[in-house]
């Protein structure tokens, strides 16, 4: 019904413009007087999205999409200075939830359509997912796997890729995660199965001593010894265990003593331990558990049973893919280099300067220290997992993963947006207050935050957002 209404109008942009003027005239209470059919006349931020989706059914929807987005931007500017709550909230929340459900349905069918293609158009998927994935319909696991590059765009290859990767993971686990005594047992069982049968026939008397090499015993100090390597990793394993206990303590999925959460912690432990063994340069750094948590959560809550049971293997691969461009942030030696965290922080500062010089100057000079390291370090290395609750993280990561220029680029924009959205409080605060604010970032409407982030352009010469 909605789409029918749209197509009747000769000039889609014109109708929306007309709608916008309507809204200015509306008072808050008139929203409830409208029924579903007339929603599109009222211009609210969400409306643009549903308008955009009906466009995307056309193959040449590109141009119209761009135009719609620009229109949305201009409207948003007006809305932003009204603060965090977008104006449509005044119209009644049940109105909104119904509208949102319809949007979600549309978006879901769009995405399902996209991923059911034989050859998936990743660019298109990125654009749709950039506005967030709907919660129902179990799209997130598959979409994230596609966006991270774990699943290839060609649907036929999925089966093969998945099986191959899962097997690879199982093999890696076997090679690297067994304790040395288990390894020795397997080796010995293979070699001495005959001898063992004889010895077990109850003959008493002195036990046979077998000579072994200097590498093969638990107290061996040799570098090549399995035992030595095992003990070296014990410290890391303990650290990982401690961190896993503290991951998302409010969620039953991760914390608590049920066998359910224990299993999940066990899987995450395997993943992190394996990662540390495969990357001796970085090993394990506190916080990697937080980055792994959303990925593992999304994959194990996949309603497809086969996918959910292989969540560990898939999470490992996707975790590696996700960290591949930000792994240098974890390496202390690279801190001051051109790929290290300090350089990224300076990029964030530049971005802030380009978009809001007043705020930048306030943070840089008035409050003296380079605050960036105190709060943005955590934002960037942990991909914002410590700043928001899990649901918000999933939404933010939808945008991060779907950015065609990469996760890091979008991450910087979101961080900048976080600063911009807290601008008024930051400008009026001193060093201590600002630090407190930024280290415990206040609750904010995620959609609003992401919209601000979308609007930020890294190019200093053009689009400058002023609030």
């Amino acid at each position, binding site marked *: 019904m909605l789409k029918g209404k749209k197509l009747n109008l000769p000039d889609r942009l014109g109708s929306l413009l007309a709608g916008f003027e309507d809204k200015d005239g509306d008072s808050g209470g008139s929203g409830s007087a409208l029924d579903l059919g007339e929603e599109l006349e009222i211009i609210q931020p969400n409306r643009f999205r549903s308008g955009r989706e009906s466009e995307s059914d056309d193959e040449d929807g590109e141009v119209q999409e761009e135009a719609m987005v620009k229109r949305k931007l201009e409207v948003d500017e007006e809305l932003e200075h009204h603060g965090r709550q977008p104006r449509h909230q005044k119209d009644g929340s049940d109105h909104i939830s119904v509208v949102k459900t319809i949007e979600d349905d549309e978006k879901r069918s769009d995405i399902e359509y996209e991923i059911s293609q034989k050859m998936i158009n990743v660019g298109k998927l990125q654009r749709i997912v950039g506005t967030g994935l709907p919660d129902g319909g179990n799209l997130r696991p598959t979409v994230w796997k596609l966006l991270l590059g774990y699943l290839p765009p060609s649907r036929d290859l999925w089966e093969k890729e998945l099986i191959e990767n899962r097997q690879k993971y199982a093999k890696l686990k076997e090679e690297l995660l067994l*304790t*040395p*005594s*288990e390894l*020795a*047992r397997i080796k*010995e069982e293979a070699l*001495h199965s005959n001898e*063992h049968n004889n*010895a*077990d026939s*109850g*003959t*008493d*008397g*002195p*036990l*046979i*001593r*077998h*000579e*072994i090499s*200097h590498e*093969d*015993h*638990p*107290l*061996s*100090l040799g570098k090549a010894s399995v035992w030595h390597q095992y*003990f070296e990793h*014990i410290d890391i394993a303990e650290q990982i265990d401690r961190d896993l206990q503290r991951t998302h303590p409010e969620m039953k999925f991760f914390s608590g003593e049920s066998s359910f959460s224990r299993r999940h912690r066990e899987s995450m432990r395997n993943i992190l331990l394996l990662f540390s063994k495969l990357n001796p340069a970085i090993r394990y750094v506190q916080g990697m558990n937080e980055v792994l948590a959303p990925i593992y959560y999304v994959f194990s809550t996949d309603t497809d049973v086969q996918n959910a049971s292989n969540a560990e293997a898939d999470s490992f691969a996707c975790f590696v893919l996700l960290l591949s461009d930000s792994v240098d942030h974890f390496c202390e030696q690279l801190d001051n280099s051109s790929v290290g965290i300090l350089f990224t922080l300076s990029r964030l500062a530049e971005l802030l300067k380009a978009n809001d010089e007043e705020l930048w100057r306030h943070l840089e000079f008035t409050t003296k220290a380079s605050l960036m390291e105190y709060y943005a370090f955590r934002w960037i290395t942990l991909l914002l997992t410590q700043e928001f609750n899990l649901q918000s993280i999933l939404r933010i990561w939808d945008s991060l993963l779907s950015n065609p220029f990469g996760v890091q680029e979008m991450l910087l924009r979101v961080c900048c947006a976080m600063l911009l959205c807290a601008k008024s409080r930051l400008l009026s605060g001193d060093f201590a207050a600002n630090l407190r604010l930024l280290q415990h970032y206040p609750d904010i409407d995620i959609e609003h935050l992401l919209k601000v982030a979308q609007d930020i352009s890294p190019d200093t010469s053009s689009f400058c957002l002023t609030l």
Partner: protein
Amino acid sequence: MVLVLALGDLHIPHRAADLPPKFKSMLVPGKIQHIICTGNLCIKEVQDYLKTLCPDLHITIGEYDEETRYPETKTLTIGQFKLGLCHGHQVIPWGDLDSLAMLQRQLDVDILVTGHTHQFTAYKHEGGVVINPGSATGAYSSITYDVNPSFVLMDIDGLRVVVYVYELIDGEVKVDKIDFKKTATTTHSAH
């Protein structure tokens, strides 16, 4: 995978000054979960040193120990195995297998660890194992001067125990390995 260190008969300071340096370099904290010591340390400093290697320390009294409050025998369960500990000077004849087997039945253990003879031995007897880790310092015994320093490390993994024997022969550390699997239906035959 539980690592248990078994050693004893150090006789520090009376008959030996310290553990051989090659042994000391291998014994680092953090790897071993339990230490069982047959006795004759003899002074408290040795107990303190062993405690730094591992907090879970079990000692039985030997005839030259200065600390008189250690027990004569001790039993503990590690994994699927029951271990018994006794110095061995109480069992006469010293080192006699049948007499030690009596003690093993009395304590009802799978692995009996005793010392006093300062000679490493490992016997399988009636479904159980009797181990003598020897003297970790190579101190002379009541019987002989010719003693090689030795100790034992047991790796208990389910129903299987791997016994690593560390011996210092001619200044070089030699490591041997002994496998023992506990059959689930082991019973001690009554005599």
